[in-house]
């Protein structure tokens, strides 16, 4: 799943605000296909990581309760404009994606 992460990162007086929108189905595994009645297999993000200049600043464990196309926003200190951040996720099927962005 390429290009599944959109990031906006801003830094103000040393504090970075990172916002990202991930496009992912986040299937719980409990829904049924309306036509066939078969269960739709679970597919959800299990791990989200954020690295700031190569150093991990966020590591989150998610489950099926997180919504489809999840939005994640968080802040951390010690950042300045021009720094690089890397956001990545891995889902229960082993699919993954990552993207790099510069802090504005």
């Amino acid at each position, binding site marked *: 799943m390429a290009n599944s992460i*959109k990031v*906006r990162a801003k830094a103000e007086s040393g504090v970075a605000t990172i*916002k990202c*929108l991930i*496009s992912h189905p986040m299937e719980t595994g409990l*829904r049924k296909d309306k036509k066939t009645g078969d269960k739709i297999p679970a597919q959800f993000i299990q791990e989200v990581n954020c690295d700031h200049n190569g150093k991990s600043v966020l590591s989150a464990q998610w489950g099926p309760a997180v*919504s*489809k*196309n999840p*939005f994640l926003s968080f802040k951390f200190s010690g950042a300045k404009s021009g720094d690089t951040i890397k956001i990545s996720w891995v889902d229960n099927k082993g699919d993954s994606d990552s993207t790099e962005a510069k802090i504005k």
Partner: protein
Amino acid sequence: MKIFVTALSVLMIIATPVATQASPDNDLKAFRSYYHKKFPEVPMNDFVNGVYAIDKASRGQWESFEEFPSYEIFVDKGEALFNKKFANGKSFADCFPNYKKGVRQNYPHFDKASGKVVTLEGDINKCLTDNGEEAYGWQKGKISYVSAYLAYLSRGNKLNIKVPNDPKAITAYNLGKKHFYAKRGQLNMSCADCHYHYAGSKIRADILSPALGHPTGFPVYRNKWAGDSKGSDGMGTLHRRYGGCNKQVRAKPFKPQSDEYRALEYFHTYMSNGLEVNGPSQRK
């Protein structure tokens, strides 16, 4: 003779205002001045923001949504669909040659040849069927993505809906106007009851949005639609919303893209003429 002339002039005085009062142009002026008097502190172009133009409390939350809106994903999806080549080698760009400059502001328009009101969604599906492709569904999914992409490119353009002096155009306009003001459903409510007379008042926990500026923001990403159980992703067209509105007053909704809803869109959008397109947008 003199009496006759006087009688004639009296007749003319009576006859002219009646004839002009029913004209779309005069409707528009009356519609505008009503909202202007009701919400004197709201600048005209701010009405495009719907309820957030008049409700400060929810505006902050909405603005933070719009900073990084959920519909961006769907604008991208719409762009991909728009640029995808059809089986015959053509694409949507052949049907919408001016899409880069924006086309949303001219929809819906009256088509003389067929005598019908043409909507943007109608033209999207017409483009597909004309090129031998299967048409999209009318209310959500792909049609709303392509529509969102076209609206996104049209942002900032001012709505320019024309009601030509053609009996069929006037009939369609009047049908839409009638739908807007007519009571319907078990709750016996009209569109106008909520969005005209009671705009700005509370309906349970929500504040009613003014009808002026409604159509500029469509298609929309609604938090409500994103959370429904039928697997909807949140995006929907104006006609999907019309259906929802009709259901809320416990009336049987018309079919999307029916004559009735196209006429309503015609009237509804005409009333917002001159306001800027800001679709797609995020709504509750």
